[in-house]
């Protein structure tokens, strides 16, 4: 009798686990920041995986066979778009044979769609470096752009999984409210540094600077994707001294040694500013990461005042 009941319960538990696992929406994001947004909007009823590691350059991810397996089983794919993943995602998608995430399918989310893109080139010319024809793809560092992306995620999740449409909408409302509250806080934190002059390694803080009223006076790369040359770095040092730019922002996959050399010469400091959640301890979510970026930058700029 008791045994029978335990067996029945066990069976129910197994059935419940099985069915819920099967029903759980599998969302794959190309990068950890997109994955974090998917977790915010999907809540704990969706299973979210990121293809790129937090410390990995999103332009240069290895198209590993294990990614094919992940994509093959995905219900939803979120990509940054604007050619961010152009070097590695297409062959994976060809092999993934998954119509649910094909271009144009409901399960395919292109984050850049609807975002006001900056630096859209007026002509296709690679003598200007590896410029993306659809604009600068690093828009997730702007929390306002992120709201547009979050709504796109919510819309698509609702279409793919209409059962939970209301839940995705509710999560979006909560997310937006939280972004707004945080935005006020972040802006307050960075308000004393209005129009502060900064230097970055790659053109990856354009949206961030735009949002928080910072001025990027130079990048260590002479052109996007082009390695820094000594002549260019000399020019950067000159500009930094002339403009009184005292911080250089680098991501984990950029050459910190180069940045430090320039910083030493220019009397500046190098700040580790990874834009991917999880690249630093205790920055697992988009909010944690933005907190970290804002705090680190504020401290860096304050220290230099």
């Amino acid at each position, binding site marked *: 009798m008791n045994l029978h009941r335990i067996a029945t319960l066990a069976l129910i538990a197994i*059935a*419940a686990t099985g069915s*819920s696992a099967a029903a759980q929406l599998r969302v794959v994001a190309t990068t950890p920041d997109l994955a974090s947004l998917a977790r915010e909007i999907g*809540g*704990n*009823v969706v299973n979210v995986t990121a293809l790129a*590691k937090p*410390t*990995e*350059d999103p332009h240069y991810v*290895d*198209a*590993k*066979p*294990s990614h094919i*397996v992940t994509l093959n089983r995905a219900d939803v794919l979120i990509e940054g*778009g*604007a*050619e961010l993943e*152009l*070097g590695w*995602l297409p*062959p994976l998608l060809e*092999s993934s*044979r998954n*119509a649910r995430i*094909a*271009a*144009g399918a*409901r399960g395919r989310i292109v984050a850049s*769609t*609807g975002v006001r893109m900056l630096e*859209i080139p007026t002509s296709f010319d*690679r003598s200007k470096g*590896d410029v993306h*024809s*659809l604009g600068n793809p690093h828009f997730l560092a702007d*929390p*306002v752009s992120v*709201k*547009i992306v979050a*709504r796109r995620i*919510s*819309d698509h999740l*609702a*279409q793919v999984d209409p059962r939970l449409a*209301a839940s995705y*909408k*509710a999560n979006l*409302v909560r997310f*937006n*409210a939280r972004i*707004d509250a945080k*935005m*006020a806080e972040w802006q307050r934190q960075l308000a004393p540094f209005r129009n502060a002059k900064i230097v970055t390694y790659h053109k990856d803080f354009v949206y961030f600077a735009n949002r928080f009223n910072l001025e990027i006076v130079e990048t260590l790369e002479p052109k996007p994707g*082009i*390695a820094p040359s000594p002549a260019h770095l000399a020019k950067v040092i000159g500009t930094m001294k002339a403009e009184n730019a005292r911080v250089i922002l680098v991501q984990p*996959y*950029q*050459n910190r040694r180069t940045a430090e050399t320039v910083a030493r010469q220019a009397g500046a400091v190098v700040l580790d500013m990874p834009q991917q959640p999880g690249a630093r301890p205790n920055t697992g979510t988009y909010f944690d990461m933005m907190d970290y970026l804002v705090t680190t930058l504020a401290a860096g700029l304050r220290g230099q005042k």
Partner: protein
Amino acid sequence: MRGRSILCAFGLITPLLAQAQAPQKKDSLAKADSAARADSIALVHELEKELGKPAGDSGAAAQTPPHASGGYMNIGFVSLTDAGWSTEPDIGSLERGDHDPQVRGFTIPNTELALDGAVDPYFKGFSNIVFKLDKNGETGVELEEAFVLTTSLPANLQLKAGQFFTEFGRQNPQHPHSWAFVDQPLVLNRMFGPDGLRSQGLRVSWLAPTPFYTEALLSIVNSAGGATSSFRSEESPEIHGGRATERAVRGLQDMLIVPRLATSFDLTETQTLLLGASAAFGPNNSGSSARTRIYGVDGYWKWKPAAAQQGFPFISMQGEALLRRYDAAERVSADVPTVTLPNETLKDRGAYAQVLWGIKPRIVAGLRGDWARGDDASFDSELRADRFRVSPNFTWYPTEFSKFRVQYNYDDRKEIGSDHSLWFQFEFLLGAHASHKF
């Protein structure tokens, strides 16, 4: 347990749902947004208005991006120039590949015009047209690849149809522009000929539902043609010097059948291993029922740290080993009609192993070892003689759209002696971004 926690989650969500749906159906999000104030909200709405997307409308699917790139077809153009010198004046006897350096001095052995795009909702199309200058400077054009690939077959199946590089091993399906060395590995040249194994037909592949990557592929292609050495290609007879036997295709047994199984594991966060086993079965033209069987194993291992700068540094190792059984039927020698060659099975084997070290961004050092040998047969062909080669090289990629390479080859042809060669290579790419498979 897991089921219960999910139920709990539902329980938490429900009140929120009610809350969210309550105010207004259509504009609930906009309302919630404005309730939450902050000037960024106004900006979002302003943006949305500008983009013509009604706020809060969840129905609208993907919008057209600000401007579409490309058109219906991606176009890429890759051009390779080789230059160099060797102690062997007859470069063709050292470098037998169609896309290898051809003479002392300069050659342009491979310029590809690559086109691809979605054909319709069911197929993607790919084409590669190669232009090359031969050793006399004459331009040659070949339709290297032209195939469609299905995009949405059920049961994890995928079909490829048309003309394509046969998926045997790791390097055979790769275009010269993705090779890590100036020239083709000896063993692949020996088994598959100057242009690799490439034919017309069908390939079906199946992605197995295993937790790790496992793919099974089966190609059924023509066994005759310009790039089916070891089988019914015109190049086949010379490997043992007999006169080619004309034979028509009578059934499936006269097609070239190429099965392959590949599997991959992420050993750690930073290391990946890919293993494969391939075979190729088909008729050859030494006799009316003579057949060739080729077996191969391949491996690829790569290490790249989690915070690699533009994909550097890295270390990768790649190797392939192949074995060929070639039935040579009794027949008349092509050169000396009075000589009759006996019925025998020619056995060849060979392997190569290469290691690449991406020292710092855009700089790669490489080392490859090549080895190939054939057993003794009644006819001694230079194409089956023992050979050994070591090739260190160095590549600099100014960007991912251009590269400079320098390679030294130490060649040891056992009966002939050793040779030294130095090759330079320059490559540029126009148009569509090169994306590479692992």
